[in-house]
């Protein structure tokens, strides 16, 4: 029995505008560019991909199922600039074959710095999912699959039944990512580990003509999935939704591949599609996976170095979270919101200087010419936000 568990990550950051040390206004975000990118990606990816998923779900009459994790930041952008994307997500939700996962509203790394803030952002996101889709997420995924034993324990405390993480070689060892695991000392929470080989075959290698498996066809991929039969329960295919049409352009054939994948997978009588909640309800845990150190799904290192790999990144994050009390003391909704939008992990990803092996991916998504420019810009904004907080606090004291 092999189940295919698709989870797609949907996220758009709010990119900052060029903010100089001489600027003094509170318009930190480049809404023109954000809208442009949101529209572009919607037309290349979200709309055609949602349409395709809807077709597939209807065609297979409940046998094809998928999960999404959509950040609050992305949902807000859709509501504002591309409401038709939201309505297609509603349509998907109504099929009953789509599960929505939980995550931090602002796609933040708050777990590393502030548990209070982390919990607040998860609750914000849950509320939004409940309001929009009427679902209460049971499975949690942390930003960029940042994970260790503590994340698992915390997720369980917050009431989740499952959590997604990277099936990194250095934590799995000889074990297969195709089984279900538990975290040490955490009862009632199951771990879904990403099958990164098969996931990355689609997400990163699909259009690469230099890859020996190119071109990847649906029958070939289905055969790889079939090989799991007998030595695994589930193939967890976790990837950015933007893979479809944006990272892998339409002319690579990615949509056609997906259109034919379900029928090829289901050709084998033992296969099916499950959502993460169904996976944890269906399959038992087969062992314990101890992850004392932080892992993630990024780059070849699968660690935090994409966001915390140099002095600028750790300084920016430290300074940002150091402001938490100051921000919350102001009681100013706008300040709180701006502060939270600055927590989106992308801002720190842009500051990454690991340019020599993973650099290509970083460069492609980077609105800045260099990581230094992004740090300078971020720190200028942070500086302004801090003085806004101070002004509000001083005024309160005087008043």
């Amino acid at each position: 029995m092999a189940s295919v568990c698709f989870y797609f990550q949907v996220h758009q950051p709010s990119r900052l505008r060029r903010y100089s040390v001489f600027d003094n206004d509170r318009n930190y975000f480049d809404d023109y560019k954000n809208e442009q990118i949101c529209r572009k990606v919607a037309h290349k990816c979200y709309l055609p991909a949602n349409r395709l998923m809807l077709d597939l779900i209807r065609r297979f009459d409940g046998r094809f199922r998928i999960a999404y994790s959509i950040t609050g930041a992305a949902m807000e952008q859709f509501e504002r600039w591309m409401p038709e994307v939201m309505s297609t997500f509603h349509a998907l939700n109504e099929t009953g074959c789509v599960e929505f996962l939980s995550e931090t509203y602002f796609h933040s790394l708050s777990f590393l710095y502030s548990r209070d803030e982390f919990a607040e952002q998860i609750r914000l996101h849950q509320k939004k999912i409940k309001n929009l889709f009427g679902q209460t997420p049971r499975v949690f995924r942390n930003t960029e699959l940042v994970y260790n034993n503590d994340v698992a324990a915390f997720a369980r405390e917050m009431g989740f039944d499952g959590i997604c993480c990277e099936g990194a070689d250095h934590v799995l060892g000889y074990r297969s990512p195709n089984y279900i695991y538990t975290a040490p000392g955490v009862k009632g929470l199951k771990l879904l580990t990403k099958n990164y080989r098969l996931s990355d075959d689609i997400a990163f290698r699909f259009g690469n003509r230099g890859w020996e498996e190119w071109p990847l066809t649906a029958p070939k991929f289905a055969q790889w999935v079939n090989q799991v039969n007998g030595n695994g329960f589930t193939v967890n295919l976790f990837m950015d939704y933007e893979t479809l049409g944006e990272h892998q352009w339409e002319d690579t054939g990615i949509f056609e591949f997906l259109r034919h994948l379900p029928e090829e997978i289901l050709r084998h009588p033992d296969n099916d599609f499950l959502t993460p909640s169904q996976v944890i309800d269906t399959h038992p845990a087969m062992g314990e996976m101890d992850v004392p150190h932080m892992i993630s799904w990024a780059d070849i290192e699968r660690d935090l170095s994409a966001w915390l790999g140099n002095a600028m990144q750790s300084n920016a994050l430290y300074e940002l979270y150091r402001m938490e009390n100051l921000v919350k003391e102001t009681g100013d909704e706008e300040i709180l919101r701006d502060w939270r939008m600055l927590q989106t992990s992308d801002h720190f990803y842009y500051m990454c200087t690991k340019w020599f092996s993973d650099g290509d991916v970083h460069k492609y998504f980077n609105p800045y010419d260099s990581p230094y420019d992004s740090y300078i810009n971020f720190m200028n904004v942070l500086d302004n936000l801090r003085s806004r907080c101070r002004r509000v606090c001083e005024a309160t004291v005087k008043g």
Partner: protein
Amino acid sequence: MKVLMLGWEFPPFISGGLGTACYGLTRALSQMGTEVIFVLPKPITGVHATHVKMAHPHALGRISGKDVFGGSELARVIFRTLPSMMTPYQTPQDYEEALRKARQLAGESFGLELDLPDIAGGDHYGRDLYQEVQRYAKLAAWISREEEFDVIHAHDWMTYPAGMAVSALSGKPLVVHIHSTEFDRSGEHVNQMVYDIERQGMHAADKVIAVSHLTKNIVVNRYAVPAEKVEVVYNAIDRDGSVVGFVNPGISKDEKIVLFLGRITMQKGPEYFLAAAKKVLEVMDNVKFVMAGSGDMIRRTIEMAAEMGIGHKVLFTGFLRGKDVDRVFQMADLFVMPSVSEPFGLVPLEALRNDVPVIISKQSGVAEVLTHALKVDFWDINEMANKIVAVLRHPPLHSTLREHGNFEVRKFNWTTSAQQVMEVYRMAQSPVAV
């Protein structure tokens, strides 16, 4: 392979990047086993008489590198000095001035109807730079008959006529090396005579070496040289092994220092440095701006600083060399190169080697290859000031730039550049029909 190199300046008297590049390249070629006959101008009298200790009874001196510098570094180099008043970066006006001074020394100012003493073996300095360049060509052609070589390599326009003459006489291929063009030196107000010589040299050459793609584009677009004839070879820098201390010993300062180092001339953008300094001082107080170098705009720049009301924050050191350069780098927190036009730009590499982070103008060749540097348009003084403030205010930015930059600068070494130059020589020897 034996190269007749028409070059400039040798240590310790180097006035800029051209001399540094000639020296670095020649040394690396020599170490790779290439023999080099290094021909350079050397004035006989006047202010420049203290040039390299290569005094030789015969004016058309021939001396081995081993004798001059000792050791094996320049063992395969033969120096040939030609009497001439040409110096790098000279303009026709500069030349006339230099000639006037030389004549004064020679006694002409005392009303004597006397030309320069006839110590150059029957030759006189040219009456203007144009004549001098042609005269230099004749001298070079003359001595080239005594030498054997496979390829001729000429650096910047004043040596192109010499390169062409030697090439015509010997039938050997000519490679011209563009360290800067007339457009870099003079903006759009080009000297037609200089431009013509440059163009002639580039077209006569079998191969052209440009110090950056920026320069290659100028060569292709403004001198109409076919792109396939032009190769880019970046300049480099030697790691001299001297380790800079962790903290500046003996210098305790609560003020930050931002450094400008280079000729103070239009091409280097000193006024943009000042304008950015003024902006920085609007938001920061504990910072000083040091301008190291001399040049034709120094007076105007000093006056400008005073007019802007930041005279007390801007220090001028005059021209620095050797240990003084090291010292100023050790004091500096940041180096800024706001060049309007910079074919390559060696100083940022020196700064990085000395653990000083750099801001460089996007209008520089080195910006093409340097990743761990902050880059700005030279005219964008707000952004320049923004970046200066950021480096001074945020230690993590300073340290990340410094660490990565110091590492990155190691990829610029003369051995690599010399290998590329050797490849160009080979191409020049077997030219493909274009």
